[in-house]
């Protein structure tokens, strides 16, 4: 008699259990003759994520029973997982570091590096800024180096007006931050710290778009999507001012802020047919999908070379 007090709870609990059970149905693999199955784990750079996501999405149309999971732990976070064998493929917006190479070797992980494209880190100012068209690497360094106290545009270059300078950039976990600081300040991760930092590039876009004195940097794809609300600054790396554009990024004349995008593939994962098929698909469609996602693809021959290196 007394337990009826609790019986009322059983209905909703059953409902919950039923929901959990339903989630198990629906996508049960059927497996055709040449259908592959299995799971491919990808993690790493949020910059390279859109490309790998695009490839995974297209690949799913060919091989619907292969589960491709793509995460965004950042280039460094991705390598941490990759070098202990947790993931099959790691997205990266910089080459693998020696320390990460050693970690992989210590865990017996062999891998193949595949270049998939190039990103041009874009230096941006507010649309209302009519005096900056180009900055030299030295000027960028003077502004961004650790300990820099420049907080007015007139201190950046003689002739610039008296306008307060405020800085925007990615946070320290970002591969973009690593690359920019390495190229501009000479050492990765070394930067002045009194700037508005965000892991979310859209926050930087909003900040720069709303601040007349703003100066900031982020990946090319974000500039492409926000061309109307921001002004891009050409960068002079010693050979004159160059604006980031697909052509200048591809031929390397936009320097030093062009950076390579990679995927790293675990060699033993490549023995699995689904990973083999996925990487082949990646290299066959990498050119088009990299371009669609706002980055600059490498030459078609490089995708072929990647395939050859992996024995595909």
């Amino acid at each position, binding site marked *: 008699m007394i337990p009826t007090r609790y019986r009322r709870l059983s209905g909703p609990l059953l409902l919950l259990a039923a929901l959990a059970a339903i989630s198990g149905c629906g996508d049960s693999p059927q497996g055709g003759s040449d259908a592959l199955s299995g799971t491919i784990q990808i993690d790493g750079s949020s910059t390279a994520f859109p490309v790998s*996501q695009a490839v995974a999405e297209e690949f799913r149309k060919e091989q619907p029973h292969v589960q491709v999971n793509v995460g*965004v732990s950042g280039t460094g976070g991705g390598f941490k997982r990759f070098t202990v064998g947790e993931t099959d493929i790691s997205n990266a917006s910089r080459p693998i570091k020696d320390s990460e190479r050693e970690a992989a070797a210590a865990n017996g992980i062999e891998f193949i590096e595949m270049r998939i494209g190039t990103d041009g880190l874009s230096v941006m100012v507010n649309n209302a800024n009519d005096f900056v068209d180009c900055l030299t690497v030295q000027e960028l360094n003077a502004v961004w180096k650790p300990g820099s106290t420049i907080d007015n545009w007139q201190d950046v270059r003689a002739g610039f007006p008296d306008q307060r300078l405020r800085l925007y950039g990615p946070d320290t976990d970002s591969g973009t931050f690593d690359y920019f600081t390495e190229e501009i300040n000479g050492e990765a991760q070394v930067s002045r710290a009194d700037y508005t930092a965000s892991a979310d590039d*859209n926050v930087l876009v909003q900040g720069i778009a709303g601040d007349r004195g703003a100066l900031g940097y982020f990946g090319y794809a974000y500039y492409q999507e926000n061309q109307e609300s921001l002004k891009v600054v050409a960068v002079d790396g010693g050979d004159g001012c160059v604006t980031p554009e697909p052509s200048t990024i591809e031929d390397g004349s936009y320097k030093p802020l062009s950076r390579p995008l990679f995927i790293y593939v675990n060699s033993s994962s490549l023995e699995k047919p689904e990973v083999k098929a996925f990487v082949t698909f990646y290299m066959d469609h990498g050119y088009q999908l990299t371009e669609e996602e706002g980055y600059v693809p490498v030459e078609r021959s490089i995708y072929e070379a990647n395939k050859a290196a992996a024995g595909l």
Partner: protein
Amino acid sequence: MAKAEVTALLNPRLAVRKRIGSVAYVIFMLAILIGLAGLAALLLRVLWQGVPWLSLHFLTDYPSRFPEQAGMKSAIFGTIWIMALTGLFTVPVGVGAAVYLEEYAPKNWFTRIIEVNISNLAGVPSIVYGLLGLAVFVQILALGRTVLAGAMTMSLLVMPIVIIASREAIRAVPSTYREASYGLGATKFQTVKDVVLPHALPGIMTGTILAMSRAIGEAAPMIAISALVFLTFIPTDPLDEFSVMPIQIYNWVSQPRPEFRGIAAAGIIVLLVVLLSMNAVAIYIRNRTQKRSEE
């Protein structure tokens, strides 16, 4: 003499006190209005941005790089899995701990330390639980980045809320009930099971609702466990990988294409609907059990 003059004579400061009273009323009114205005602004903005993107396929499709094809099926099911398992882990353990502390534990310095610590745990930032879960469940217990590890982490996060609320509810059961039960010859366990818990159930349910509402919106600890944002399968058992709605929304907000801000807003609307319906079910159960316990 007119009535007002009489009052003024009898109580010279009445007018001043009344004026202070009405000023206080306005201040309190403003306090609630500011809160409501903030909420309304948030909701309107989300609705404005997100409603155009809402459709059935948004619920039944997997994530996509094309805004018009993007859906949150994997995240919705991931959230349902995490919530169901979190509830399963949290409620028995949380209520059990509360029963022990209220009904069994001796009142000494040791239990007081436990109590203070539980209250403090409720205020620990959620990312700390995420890192703890990553270290203990994912790595040491080798559960991997699975639904099970996620739900266990989430359970740790919301456990203090359930314990605190359950203790309040148990404490609110009049001690005369217990004494009557003992008087009839019931054992301690029978008293707890048949007298204390049924009467405390509404309060326990309230605490559970609060705890689950917090859990469903947490992104930080889940990102520590699983940063998956492109997942085209739904978990079929607790050892599958998963994504949850807040992770998905967080990722959409940071996409370069501006359309994804609308998709993110649509995701927030879905999250709110799931949250509200979860709460509605729980409140309905609570009200029914409440009626019974008053009989």
